[in-house]
């Protein structure tokens, strides 16, 4: 890998971004012109560094490049500080904002729904971040909630969209918490409710929890794995907000794309310092 700081001309440069999420690790390779060259998604598991390395290698392979071709790699996500080959880090709040800003102009509210948390990030008309909210510690409103509900419905999370699409009756899950929702769901099954209707109810619960996090006016963009893989979530948001979420390309890898953009900025604009490393709290 060429040393960070030895800036080449923008067109010839190459950058990587890694998003080390609690559930999946995503890697994206871009060119100096921000063109998408390759990406990969792998399960994070317990070895953050290993998963980051694997995702990075796969993304490089997809781009047809070797590590040494890259000018800089930046990391984001909850495991961002565990990636020794990253030249710098930014939070996922920053990287999702960067990723969206690349595709969407004007004041925007971003809804990012990941495996372990949901975030609402507000950008002003210039695309600067002005506030963020993160969901409370419970899994409600996140991908983990859908995993738990899929388990109770005797299916898997990837088959939940297909199941929910067959709904015929509107059912509500009212509980705040994932454990309570689980027992509520079991009660509904006992009461004769159909799994397809309950799968939709699970999506409605996620959407409701997120809508409670902030006021949504103006344009709203959606990112993250749940937005990428569960189309019913987008339909439900559209129903509540009166307009569809703007979904940028590759919504699941958008954080990694944002990290690659940060890497690019660090070299081409020489303006972005690596975020100071925060203390490792026990």
């Amino acid at each position, binding site marked *: 890998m060429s040393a*960070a700081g030895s800036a080449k001309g923008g067109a010839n440069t190459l950058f990587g971004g890694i998003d080390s999420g609690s559930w999946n690790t995503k890697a994206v390779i871009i060119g100096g012109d921000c063109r998408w060259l390759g990406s990969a998604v792998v399960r994070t598991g317990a070895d953050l560094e290993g998963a980051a390395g694997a995702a990075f290698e796969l993304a490089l392979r997809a781009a047809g490049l070797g590590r040494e071709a890259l000018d800089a790699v930046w990391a984001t996500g*909850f495991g961002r*500080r565990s990636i020794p080959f*990253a*030249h*710098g*880090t*930014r*939070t*996922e*709040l*920053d990287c999702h904002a960067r990723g969206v800003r690349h595709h969407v102009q004007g004041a925007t509210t971003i809804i990012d729904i990941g495996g372990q*948390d949901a975030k609402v990030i507000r950008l002003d008309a210039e695309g*600067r*971040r*002005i*506030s*963020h*909210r*993160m969901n*409370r*510690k419970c899994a409600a409103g996140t991908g983990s909630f859908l995993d738990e509900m899929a388990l109770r419905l005797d299916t898997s999370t990837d088959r939940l969209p297909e199941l929910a699409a067959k709904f015929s009756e509107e059912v509500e899950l009212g509980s705040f918490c994932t454990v309570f929702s689980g027992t509520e769901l079991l009660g509904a099954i006992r009461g004769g409710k159909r799994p397809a209707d309950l799968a939709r109810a699970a999506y409605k619960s996620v959407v409701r929890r997120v809508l409670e996090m902030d006021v949504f006016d103006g344009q709203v963009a959606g990112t993250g794995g749940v937005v990428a893989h569960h189309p019913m979530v987008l339909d439900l948001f559209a129903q509540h907000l009166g307009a569809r979420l703007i979904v940028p390309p590759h919504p699941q890898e958008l954080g990694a794309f944002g990290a690659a953009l940060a890497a690019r900025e660090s070299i081409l604009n020489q303006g972005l*310092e*690596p*975020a*100071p*490393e*925060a*203390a490792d*709290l*026990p």
Partner: protein
Amino acid sequence: MHAPRNERLELRSTARMKELLAEYFGRLGSAAKDRSAPVAWCSSVGPAEMLRALGFEVFFPENHGAMLGAFRMANECMSKAHARGYSQEICSYLTSDVGAYLAGKTPLTAYGMDSAPRADVLVFNTNQCREVQDWFEFYGREWKVPVVGVTSFRSVGEVTEPLVTAITRQMEDLVPTLEGIAGKRLDPARLSEVVGLSRQCSDLWKACLGTAAHRPSPLTFFDSTIHMAPAVLLRGTPDAISYYELLLAELQERIAGGVAAVPGELHRLYWEGMPMWGKLREHASMFAQMHTCVVASTYCNSWIFEALDPADPLRSMARASLELFIARSDGPKQRYIERMVEQFHVDGVLFHDCRTCPHNSNTRYGMPGRLREESGIPSVTVEGDHTDLRCYSAEQSRTSIEGFVEQLADR
């Protein structure tokens, strides 16, 4: 590839403070043991001056709760109180202190005490919360000793004369009971003297905190939470005054020498809410590594009592207890935060939404949104607790705080 680790600078005065605290706890311990002086428990912003003037050794159990938190003893202790029916949702100072009593544990062993001192009387003021009364009544039942106090007003808009009069009357009513326990009359001259000393302590503490308005700040919130101990435990004594003279001189020396508490200070924050005692050290270094100085806080300002007046001791104590931030409604609270942001040249506010202390959590009625919309003050909310570490997610909070600092840097 990462920025070098930066740590905040320690203050020299700490050594003197430790001596003073050792003397204070030494006096309390012997009073409880030899019965050489009566012992009163007092809520942190309760009528301590009156107790001191009557010759009580005064113990502040919230400080005990904070020590349990800081020594990471709270969580093992509080489960004992939960088991007795004291909910996980109520003040974790209360549950950790009551739990420590039930478990026979205390961090005061560091000062040669094997338990919190047994009280002859417990004196509360509900200007901060109802919890202090419930807390003290536990010990009242255990030790069969009187629990007395002031039932105050909460959510006070304007501090009016009738409100002050009502609290003054209640304070006057405490006097005969307390005199009976102390075995002596309340000497008006002595009360006036103690109130005067308390006021001087308050003025000096305010001056110390005020040095943080300087850029770079010679002081962080994390220092102040430690150095406020004499203002909490020793107000009304000459020791507290001499301590803050010493501290103020050191802080002024730092300013003169251009010494920053956080080397390379880039961003300045205001901390709204309780400290997280078990996380102080980690928080201090986390912010220092982000070149961010938490310069001021509502919490440390809570021991500034500008109304205290030796010429009118009881009434001024009543007024001071009502003027406190925690006792006020959201309007005065918001204006207060806006003033602090201006005075301390603050870039943003960190709200600690403290799980078990709603009274010190000012995020729950839309305040952060109003500050942003009406005054353009950005803020971030971190969920946690003053003592119960189970309510805190280090990972999520770190991302939120780092993200906020990035946001301020990108402005």
